[in-house]
């Protein structure tokens, strides 16, 4: 890849957009987080563990994890109906499936944990940004987890493999590869791909996405640390 190649927003192929994660951003939720990744602005809230309702759905050996990925009507260029689309239903399912790998559901039999993700502004790679925020919200809620979950995407545009696919690249590019991993357990828990990639290109894209994910993992940790720091400050105040 030539050094001169610059993406539509000026990035190098292996360059992430700017990002920022904040934990504990909502007052009412048991846990919450906000992520900004490029112009993506996504909020995740966690309610639970709590009594599951209705009773007949309860699982006796573990908690039920509910997950909703949702885009607000103004989050996209064309106004989106607030009713969940087939795409949103599919993404809710794959995100839930990924988070289920990390959350220790067996600790809360007969209960449920709700994860609500709201995309306030969409700018490409929303699903991996969403799962990254959702994992922080779960940790913020104090839910026991085997590991965090963090996601990043890679793709291909004009024949080049790129990381952290932006909206324009998603629409105009040749392939999109969103992944999410448990960073310490080194397991892939979300993996989708569309477009066309040779096996070789896939390898390159996969590695780039992994690197991106590990960067965002640092940011997740920072976000959670500052919440703990805040708590310590508050506890300190308490002691006075």
């Amino acid at each position, binding site marked *: 890849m030539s050094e001169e190649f610059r993406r539509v927003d000026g990035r190098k192929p292996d360059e992430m957009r700017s990002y920022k994660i904040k934990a504990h951003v909502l007052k009412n939720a048991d846990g*919450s987080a906000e992520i900004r990744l490029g112009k993506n602005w996504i909020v995740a809230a966690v309610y639970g563990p709590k009594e599951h309702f209705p009773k007949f759905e309860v699982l006796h050996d573990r908690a039920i994890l509910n997950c909703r990925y949702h885009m607000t009507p*103004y989050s996209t260029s064309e106004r989106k109906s607030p009713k969940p689309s087939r795409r949103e239903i599919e993404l809710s399912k794959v995100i839930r499936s990924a988070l289920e790998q990390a959350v220790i559901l067996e600790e809360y039999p007969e209960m449920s944990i709700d994860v609500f993700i709201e995309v306030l*502004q969409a700018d490409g790679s929303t699903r991996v940004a969403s799962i990254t925020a959702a994992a922080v919200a779960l940790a913020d809620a104090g839910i026991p987890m085997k590991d965090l979950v963090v996601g990043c995407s890679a793709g291909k545009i004009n024949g080049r493999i790129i990381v952290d696919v932006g909206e324009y690249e998603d629409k105009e590019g040749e392939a999109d590869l969103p992944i999410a991993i448990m960073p310490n357990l080194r397991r892939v828990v979300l993996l989708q791909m569309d477009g066309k990639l040779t096996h070789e290109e896939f390898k390159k894209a996969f590695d780039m996405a992994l690197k991106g994910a590990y960067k965002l993992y640092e940011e997740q940790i920072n976000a959670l640390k500052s919440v703990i720091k805040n708590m310590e400050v508050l506890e300190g105040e308490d002691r006075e």
Partner: protein
Amino acid sequence: MRGEGFRGLTLSELLTIKQVEKLFSEGRRIDERGFLEFREIEINTNVIEKAFGSARVSLGDTVVVAGVNFELGTPFPDSPDKGILIVEGEVLPTASFGAEAGPPNEYEIELSRVVDRGIRESEMLPLEEYVIKHGEVVYKIFLDFNIINDDGNLIDAANLAAVAALATAKMPDINYVKEHIDELNSINIKEVPKVGVKIRDLPIAVTLGLKNNKFIVDPTFAEEIAVESLITITHTNKGELCSIQLLKGGLTFEQVFEAINIAYEKNIELRSILERNGIKVI
């Protein structure tokens, strides 16, 4: 109101309500506010860069985001010479323990319709100017808002967000669209040159709660449940009433007028906060 019914309330919510009631009987509010005092208000506009207009408003711990979208559409047969305004709001499931995903319930529909009526009846937007071709093509303006966190007084917060998003929106230049009327099919409305939205009024909604025959403004979630009655009164820029909605309970005949007078005073206060954020009728 909200919080009622079989979904019930969390224990912490119940305890707060008990505390609110106890304090009310002592003439106090849980956050030591005056009865006619608003919580801190924060207004940020253009928070969604990709929308035509947007705002994030917080009223204490209540948080709302509103966005504006323009589309080309067909006018309603009974108003062929008017643009279309559609106001829809939802309480997101992030907003509270009791909030649910799914189609809007009756409280969300009431919330949307009260905000809608304020904007529509105050004639804030010059809908009759949004006509590309009489009876055939007009602007369709979507004002969507979402409650992200619910600590009560959703109507006042949503109204502020809606008004701020609309007033600061950049809309596709209608003259440009008219000049390209023969190529309407190939116009991408997002790429039309933009001009500021003209506004003619700013409706300001003020919601009051009544407890032990005393009014409070800007009720929190717990206060909304603790009070006997709730009423929203919306004023125009000129001090006219443009929307009233008794949300809960009842009022004596005299209290109706008392409520209107309080709402008028507070409307002026909110109006000056908007003005400080650069939002006013020119």
